[in-house]
């Protein structure tokens, strides 16, 4: 694995919110590229530790999903639900293990030239798609050409392929992808289902790929119904699993059924009554009861990267004044809010970075926190001294009112709980925090038009360079997600790309200190993925996009 520090080479972007239902429906990908997810080792599936228990073949796994996907073809959508399902249907050229190693899969081996502009893949032989078409270099080239074709309207997959110059298939077993400028993140992108290889025969014949997919994976898609779910059955002749897999040959499970169960109580009820064996988005309120149930387990994966934070718009309004921002930061009782909303299933954030992020600075934690007196003092200093009947401060007749713009569809019930706790918390300091839910189009329009006082997001990425995406002036909306509209960090962040060792650590420490000290952001909690499952479900491994991988999974009796 190439460890150079090219800014865009690593890091997969994540859906901003792994728990909320609708968040994943549509390709909510932040920019480009991919980095390995670090297994943070928080909780490990019980089964993984049960030495000596042997996988049993057979059985149907029913998996309850909080969100639905509109499109099942992974090449034309960025839906993470599509990724979760099609991971079992399409194979990728290479695999990425939980420890971030790249392993062979459809490509037995590959070469990358020194400046990351030419990638040569040598394909495994004997692989067939489920419709019988053999997998060869032409098939791979057909897939990628299709993705690059604008008519395919393949946004996310195309972005993963990057600025391709040419794709060549010199012989039946060799594929060469070349670039004019270096493009390091390709390998990670290739390991994702979005660049999985589908049958060219099928692609040529089918009119619309919205509801179908034919790949070479361990399972075959039997049915897919929007708004309901999908059913996958095992392919008996499968024998080309990824290098990181625990076993070879066909999958253990006979079939996997994904059911769309948007109501969290319904989803949980289905799990605890044994109607499903796994669910995503365990309702936080039930976190403890699921954990306490000796038939069930919860697997939590804490993510590295930028924590779920509020980003304060420094360019206008009350938050243009650093004292008001600091007061806001000090007025928020984040630990209590997170405790209330997540019942201890998630940790409150103490820094802009999650603890598992490279160069995370633990000292920052002491520099800020909930301090109502400090908030009051700062606001007095900033001139927001008058108070109305509701306790809301004002200055020169202007109320201390700030609007929090968020995409309602991407915002789950627990995050709303956090928001309301924050709202009440800052109200005591004299802020009138107004929640302003909009739809995705509205969100983009509002941020682009600089019509908001604060927003919220998070990024999953272990590489600290992610800060550039969030705080470099080049990414001020509409060009990116620098919703705090900060310009002062450009120099540090640019310098840090080329720096190394202690100097790099020092620069990122400086950045973290400024972000918190200048209150560009208020970190709320450390994002994690939670899988609720029956203890019968064993052998689940984790894909690099923090999704459970079901090839090795099996159900004990």
């Amino acid at each position, binding site marked *: 694995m190439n460890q150079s520090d090219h800014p865009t080479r690593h890091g997969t972007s994540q859906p901003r919110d792994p728990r909320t239902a609708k968040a994943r429906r549509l390709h*909510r990908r932040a920019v480009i590229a991919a980095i390995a997810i670090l297994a943070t080792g928080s909780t490990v599936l019980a089964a993984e530790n049960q030495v000596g228990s042997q996988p049993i073949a057979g059985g149907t796994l029913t998996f309850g999903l909080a969100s639905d996907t509109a*499109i099942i073809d992974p090449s034309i959508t960025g839906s993470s639900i599509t990724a979760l399902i099609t991971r079992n249907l399409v194979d990728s050229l290479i695999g990425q293990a939980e420890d971030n190693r790249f392993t062979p899969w459809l490509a037995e081996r590959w070469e990358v030239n020194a400046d990351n502009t030419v990638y040569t893949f040598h394909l495994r032989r004997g692989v067939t798609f489920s419709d019988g078409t053999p997998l060869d270099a032409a098939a791979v080239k057909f897939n990628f050409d299709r993705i690059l074709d604008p008519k395919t309207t393949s946004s996310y997959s*195309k972005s993963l392929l990057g600025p391709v110059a040419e794709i060549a298939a010199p012989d039946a077993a060799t594929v060469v992808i070349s670039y004019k400028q270096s493009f390091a993140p390709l390998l990670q992108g290739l390991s994702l289902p979005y660049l999985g290889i589908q049958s060219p025969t099928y692609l040529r014949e089918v009119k619309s790929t919205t509801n179908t997919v034919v790949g070479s994976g361990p399972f075959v898609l039997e049915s897919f119904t929007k708004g309901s779910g999908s059913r996958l059955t095992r392919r008996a002749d499968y024998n080309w699993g990824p290098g990181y897999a625990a076993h070879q040959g066909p999958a253990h499970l006979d079939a996997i059924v994904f059911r769309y169960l948007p109501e969290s109580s319904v989803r949980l*009820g289905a799990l605890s009554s044994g109607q499903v064996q796994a669910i995503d988005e365990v309702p936080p309120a039930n976190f403890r009861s699921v954990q306490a149930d000796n038939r069930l387990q919860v697997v939590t994966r804490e993510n590295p990267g930028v924590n779920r934070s509020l980003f304060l718009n420094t360019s206008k309004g009350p938050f243009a004044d650093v004292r008001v921002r600091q007061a806001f930061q000090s007025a928020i009782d984040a630990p209590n809010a997170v405790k209330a909303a997540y019942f201890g299933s998630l940790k409150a954030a103490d820094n802009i970075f999650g603890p598992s992020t490279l160069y995370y600075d633990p000292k920052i934690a002491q520099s800020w926190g909930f301090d109502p007196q400090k908030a009051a003092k700062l606001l007095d200093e900033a001139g927001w001294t008058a108070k109305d009947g509701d306790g809301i401060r004002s200055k020169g007749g202007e109320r201390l009112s700030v609007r929090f713009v968020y995409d309602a569809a991407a915002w789950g019930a627990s995050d709303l709980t956090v928001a309301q706790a924050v709202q009440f918390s800052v109200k005591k300091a004299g802020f009138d925090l107004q929640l302003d839910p909009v739809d995705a189009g509205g*969100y983009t329009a509002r941020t682009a038009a600089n019509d908001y006082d604060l927003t919220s997001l998070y990024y999953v990425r272990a590489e600290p360079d992610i800060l550039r995406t969030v705080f470099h002036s080049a990414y001020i909306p509409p060009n990116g997600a620098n919703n705090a509209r900060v310009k002062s960090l450009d120099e540090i962040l640019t310098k840090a790309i080329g720096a190394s060792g202690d100097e790099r650590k020092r620069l990122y420490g400086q950045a973290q200190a400024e972000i918190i000290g200048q209150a560009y952001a208020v970190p709320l909690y450390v994002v994690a993925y939670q899988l609720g499952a029956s203890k019968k479900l064993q052998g689940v491994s984790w894909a690099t996009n923090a999704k459970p991988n079901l090839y090795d999974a099996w159900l004990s009796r």
Partner: protein
Amino acid sequence: MALRRFGIIAAVLWGAATITFVAVKAIPGDPVAILTGGENVVDAAEREALVRQFGLDQPLPVQYLRYIGQALRGDFGDSYQYRQPVLEVIGEAAGPTLQLAGTAMALALGLAFVSALATAGRRKGLRTVLAGLELAVLSTPVYWVGLLLLTVFSFYLGWFPIIGGEGIHALILPAIALCLPLAALLAQVLRDGLEEALLQPFALTVRTRGVSETQLRLRHALRHAALAVSTLTGTLFAGVLAGSILTETVFGRAGVGQITLQAIKTRDMPLLLGLVMLSALVSVLINLAVDALYLLIDPRLRRAAR
């Protein structure tokens, strides 16, 4: 006459499409952002390709005319969200919804008839209890009824697993949840209609012939009550398609309700327009059917219609 009818239908459909078009275009925000997923993943060239593909670069009147023109040919365009012809998306969703709505409606009519026939103008105690229950059901949010049914019958009792396919078993709970308020409403209207009919002078005549109360209800009063009920059934059935939004959400069922909600939330204009046209068409057709039913039931209207 038939031509006039057709003209009215066309006018209603056109009006519905126009209102929806205006509304969708009035929704604030950038439609391309929706099309591409709300984040600026795509580069300018691709963005332009998308805009052109969906005709968003044209001035609004041109978009409107093009839309109406295509709709006239039965082409409602491709859904932004599903990248699939709108008619196909709706077609796929219509099956389960019709199944649900049909079952619920049939159940509701059955329940209503039994309840109303048993208690119209008699059995005072039972009548009070049933009327009270009906009022309670009508006054409780339908989604709440659904959640309660699920909690009790699926999770605690385990009678109706929500998992396990699309069979009749999976249809029962949602159908009951959807049918209860319909049944309550129908029963009230039917009972009232029966009681009204039983007060008519002809009911006295029938009684003086020695006809039993039950026969009087079945042979005479029911037809009179059926007039109001058929209108209501039509209105309700047209509304059921929309009412299925809540039921389908609670029970995680695929269907028109789900895609309608998604279409609105993601501003999937072609799909939304298609759905509106569908429901307008359904409502118009149901009105026609109810009119026909009226003629069938009430001979007095036949001459006027001719």
